[in-house]
């Protein structure tokens, strides 16, 4: 009896190792529950859709996603998930991370595990410095904040700005990036309003009232994507700030595609800087958006979170092909550094020095179509933006 069991186990082990020659295991670390559940779903769908649309690019290998719930931004649950993915599931590649604190908490484990880890959202600028195995396919806050600061002064002709931001590290990054570029281009930030922490009540009325009293040319707002975005635009409309001559600008978080239609007419004229929105006019994006609507419903739309997952999976598939299915952390990082792609967000590549993304930033305006639907029109493009935080060596990035 014992012998038979042993034989069976051995057979299983052999077949498992045979399968793993062709199968690449990707451990996914996303908050499938809690306040980040919506983002996790978008990124998850982005990854799944890439695999579905590009099945022939994956062949002859297969990619197996092992999904784990990071639960909350506390760090420890995500860290344990990372650790177990590495030691129990023996994954070849890690991916995910919505919250920056989770990516930060996982960094020592990732370093010790020596496996490539693809960050698909977490945007605090210096995270990629924390482990040599981190590669980012999403963005850093500086990717939008810095070009927006330049554009606000040069293209929108603004002299004064008020900045309202959610009082946590990405918000502070965004403020620092915008302020540096805006003041460097001759503008002046006349007030900085911290609008509560990440979990605070999304009632922005008092902060917007304060901004209105200051009468700036532009009001630059950063809030984490999600619930808050619609509230920002509604409050802006309801307080009559547009009539008072104040332009609302910000990173694309405030015009997240999934929230755009719910914002109503108050959103028309909003100007944002971001690396992706669903209305980008290129062939890759048209194919991506159409496939998304077919897969997940005509009322759904991909957004900048989804593209983080989609492009992250494109990077993973590239590495799997380069290394012929045998994934080693250091070789994978080397392969990632050569990655260039024509993505729905336009051309993007991985900066070999920082392992962060290099991509276009689009200045867009919200317009209302004949069918009454809102969409975003690109006004201008800043090509191949490297994370300015690292390029300018701003602490703690530099």
């Amino acid at each position, binding site marked *: 009896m014992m012998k038979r069991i042993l034989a069976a186990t051995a057979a299983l082990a052999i077949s498992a190792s045979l399968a793993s020659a062709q199968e690449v295991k990707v451990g996914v670390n996303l908050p499938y*529950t809690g306040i980040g559940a919506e983002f996790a779903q978008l990124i998850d769908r982005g990854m799944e859709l890439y695999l579905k649309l590009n099945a022939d690019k994956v062949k002859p290998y297969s990619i197996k996603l092992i999904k784990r719930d990071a639960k909350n931004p506390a760090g420890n649950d995500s860290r344990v998930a990372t650790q177990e993915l590495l030691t129990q599931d023996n994954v070849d590649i890690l991916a995910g991370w919505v919250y920056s604190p989770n990516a930060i908490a996982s960094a020592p484990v990732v370093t010790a595990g020596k496996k490539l880890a693809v960050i698909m959202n977490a945007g605090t600028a210096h995270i990629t410095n924390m482990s040599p195995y981190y590669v980012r396919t999403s963005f850093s806050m500086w990717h939008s904040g810095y070009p927006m600061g330049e554009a606000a002064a040069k293209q929108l002709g603004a002299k004064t700005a008020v900045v309202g931001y959610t009082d946590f590290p990405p918000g502070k990054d965004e403020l620092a990036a915008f302020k540096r570029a805006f003041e460097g281009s001759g503008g002046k930030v006349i007030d900085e309003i911290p609008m509560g922490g990440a979990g605070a009540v999304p009632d922005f009325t*008092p902060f917007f009232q304060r901004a209105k*009293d200051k009468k700036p040319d532009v009001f630059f707002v950063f809030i984490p994507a999600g619930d808050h975005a619609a*509230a920002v635009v509604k409050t802006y409309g309801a*307080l009559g700030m547009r009539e008072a001559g104040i332009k609302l600008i910000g990173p694309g978080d405030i015009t997240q595609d999934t929230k755009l239609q719910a914002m109503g007419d108050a959103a028309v004229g909003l100007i944002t800087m971001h690396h992706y929105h669903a209305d980008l006019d290129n062939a890759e994006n048209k194919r991506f958006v159409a496939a998304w609507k077919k897969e997940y419903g005509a009322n759904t739309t991909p957004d900048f979170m989804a593209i983080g997952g989609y492009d992250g999976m494109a990077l993973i598939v590239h590495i799997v092909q380069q290394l012929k299915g045998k994934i080693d952390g250091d070789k994978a990082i080397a392969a990632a550094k050569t990655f260039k792609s024509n993505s729905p967000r336009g051309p993007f590549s991985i900066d070999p020095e920082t392992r962060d993304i290099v991509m276009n930033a689009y200045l867009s305006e919200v317009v209302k179509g004949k069918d009454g639907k809102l969409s975003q029109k690109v006004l201008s493009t800043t090509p191949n933006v490297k994370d300015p935080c690292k390029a300018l060596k701003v602490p703690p990035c530099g």
Partner: protein
Amino acid sequence: MIFTIENIASMVLGGVAAGMVLFIVSVGLSVTMGLMGFVNLAHGAFAMLGGYIIVLSMRHLGVGFIPALAIGFVMTAAVSIVFERVLYSRLYKAGELDQVLFTIGLAFVFIAALTVFIGPENQPLTLPPELRGQLDLGIVQYRTYSIFLIIVGVAIVIALWLGFERTRFGAQIRAAVDNRRMAESLGINIDRLFAITFGFGSGMAALGGGLGAEFLGLDPQYALKYLVFFLIVVAVGGAGSIVGVFCASLIIGVLDFVLKKYLPQGGTLFIYALTILLLLWRPQGLFGKPS
């Protein structure tokens, strides 16, 4: 900072409107806590359920905003009465910690069920055009919806006060809050009283969920996200006191608004410090009876 009339008026209006949302959601929590001594941490879950019913019936059934509010109130009240009779009533004699365990568990179930069946995303509320934009009040132009909220809130507090003080049913509730055993021995049907009050409180929470969605949003985490604020209002106002909850909501709404506007660097520090001071000054709440 210049304190013009316009400035002060807009602050008062904004703060009072925020306070009204707090009041409408919390009043039911306060009454059930005062009347039944039940720590109902699933109250936010009923507010969320109501908000979902309101938003989804507007979107899928094409119901108007006001009728949707009525539907949300009635359906949530009905559902909560079933919960009260079948589940809550078993725990009236249990310790408060068992009640905490039960109601937190219930909130988890609500959160997970909505996430799985409807989705994790925020459900946007589309206001009717009349309630959008700004209204000219003479001295100041202000957000129409805020003014609407203030009118609704005042109407509700007057109606509740009249119902409490001037009707037979209200007298029964007051009697039961003061001395449950005595009220029971006088022939008041306590079970029925509890069920109706609970249903009504949850219905109010549903209204608050719908009316407040413009400010607070509406997603599965709603059930626990704002619970602390509702509890603060109840504790500061004094459990079981409608006037207390109303005053506490206004004080917290207005002070929070003013502090956020002039000292945004302090974050939420002030609101918690304020609560601590108020509770140390009057541990039983502003209008609570000393135990």
